[in-house]
């Protein structure tokens, strides 16, 4: 009896979480002849990838922009963005866990608070600074932004991880005459894989899914990341909504893939985001 209730509960939750996913998948597989609001809940009789092609390429005859270019923009944004923020986070975490100095606790506190600030409170100066340096409206400008505001969380992930490493390794190396960079390069860095995976997944999802920085910093459709382009696509009511669903799936695919393939690390990353993992 109790077992049955538990499974009924699980099933109810599964229905709640899967219903929107069902709508997304089922309707993205319909073409424009088949899509109708009345048939929203029915699966397609003739599943087709036509909507994905349309969402990717757009429809020049109606002036509808495809998301293909924006998908690649997001890729060009996420690769350097993840690389630099994870590398700097690792260096910071190393210093803040193994080489504490006067004021390092205060610095850590200031860094953590930087993780929680509403970005609205820095947006206007950010835009003006990027405009002044010629980075406004460009992907490098967006990369810089994500690297800077990703520092708090990546530093936190590496600091917590390095703090658990056995202390005698770096100490022995120091007696042998290794400097701060030598210890990092030869001892700490080779041990960093677990934290790096978590930080990479976290930053990848954050940057790929970001909308606020994208919409504020990139004004031209040709440089906008996919989230911004998807929102524009969905905002134009002329577009068939099967195409919107296909577009949404395209935008969701990379992070869903990471989540399915690396679920365990994905969850570790989520937990790291809650300060005390």
């Amino acid at each position, binding site marked *: 009896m109790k077992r049955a209730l538990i499974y009924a509960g699980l099933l109810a939750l599964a229905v709640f979480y899967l219903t929107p*996913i069902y709508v997304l998948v089922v309707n993205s597989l319909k073409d424009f002849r088949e899509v109708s609001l009345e048939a929203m809940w029915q699966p397609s009789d003739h599943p087709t990838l036509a909507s994905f092609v349309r969402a990717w390429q757009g429809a020049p005859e109606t002036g509808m922009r495809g998301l293909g270019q924006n998908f690649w923009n997001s890729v060009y944004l996420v690769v350097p963005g993840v690389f630099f923020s994870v590398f700097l986070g690792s260096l910071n975490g190393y210093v803040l866990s193994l080489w504490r100095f006067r004021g390092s606790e205060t610095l850590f506190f200031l860094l953590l608070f930087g993780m929680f600030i*509403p970005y*609205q409170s820095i947006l206007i100066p950010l835009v003006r600074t990027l405009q002044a340096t010629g980075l406004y409206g460009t992907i490098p400008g967006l990369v810089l932004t994500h690297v800077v505001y990703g520092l708090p969380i990546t530093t936190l992930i590496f600091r917590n991880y390095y703090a658990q490493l056995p202390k005698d390794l770096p100490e022995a190396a120091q007696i042998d005459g290794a400097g701060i960079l030598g210890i990092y390069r030869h001892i700490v860095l080779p041990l960093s894989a677990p934290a790096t995976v978590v930080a990479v997944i976290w930053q990848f999802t954050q940057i790929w899914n970001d*909308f606020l920085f994208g919409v504020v910093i990139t004004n031209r459709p040709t440089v906008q990341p996919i989230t911004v382009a998807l929102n524009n696509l969905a905002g134009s009511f002329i577009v068939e909504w099967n195409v*919107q669903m296909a577009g949404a799936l395209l935008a969701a695919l990379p992070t869903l893939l990471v989540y399915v393939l690396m679920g365990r690390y994905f969850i570790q990353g989520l937990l790291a985001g809650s300060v005390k993992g």
Partner: protein
Amino acid sequence: MRRKWAPVLLILPSAVLLLVFVYGFIAWTAWLSTTNFNDLFVRELKPVGLANYLRLFEHPRFQIDLKNTLTFSLIFIPGCLGLGLAGALLLNSGVRFEGVWRTVFLMPMALSFIVTGVVWRWMMNPSTGLNLLFERLGLGFLANGWYTDPAIGIKAVALAAVWQLSGYTMALYLAGLRAIPRELYEAAEVDGASGWEAFRRITLPLLTPVTLSAIIILGHISLKIFDLVVAIAGSNGGPGFSSDVPAVFMFQTTFQANRFADGSAISIVLLILVSFLVIPYLRWSLRQEVRE
């Protein structure tokens, strides 16, 4: 240490970036919020004191926004905590295929708010979506106008937010549950405690730190919510600002109306609200760490 300045030198680039991009920019915004910078053609910025703030708090739209933020939080936070705890307890009760259930429950977490918004906008479209489903299931009385109905507005957005982030809370609770030593339950059983008593006296108290973390994280998301509102209700916050929130108001004021001083004032109010929530929590959590 041989060279005391070496660690400082290594962290200096990040520290400078933080100082400029976070604290410098906050100071810049705070200063802007006390000037007359309310159109693009202001020649010379002049201090106007707190005039922008006074006008802001008298602004009907901002009053609606603050009320909406509260309504959103009151649905979003308890919704995530309740579903999260329920799901975690179910998953922790030794069920078959735990991995499959967990994968399903946490999937929405991987999506962006924009994707969630696009799907839920169709789910909550008055003439189709859930309403259509309700009618076919004979539950027509459940049908409503969702985000197009000013009386519901922000509550519909909060529902989509619960869908997306309750899995996150579930992951937090699951980690918390797994950290409770089994012996505690065994001892309780020896003492003749019922399952309910063990839950109330062992599980709940030991999960308090998790609940606290979750409230802080969900609370600061509530205060900043932006993408989801834009994707569901549009960038003007729905009919009669019924789904509008401070972050959307800030965006429109600043980047569409070019009223930079007013936009700055909204963001400083947001920052202060978030600080009230986050600073005590950070101090508490760092102090915990020192004790460990």
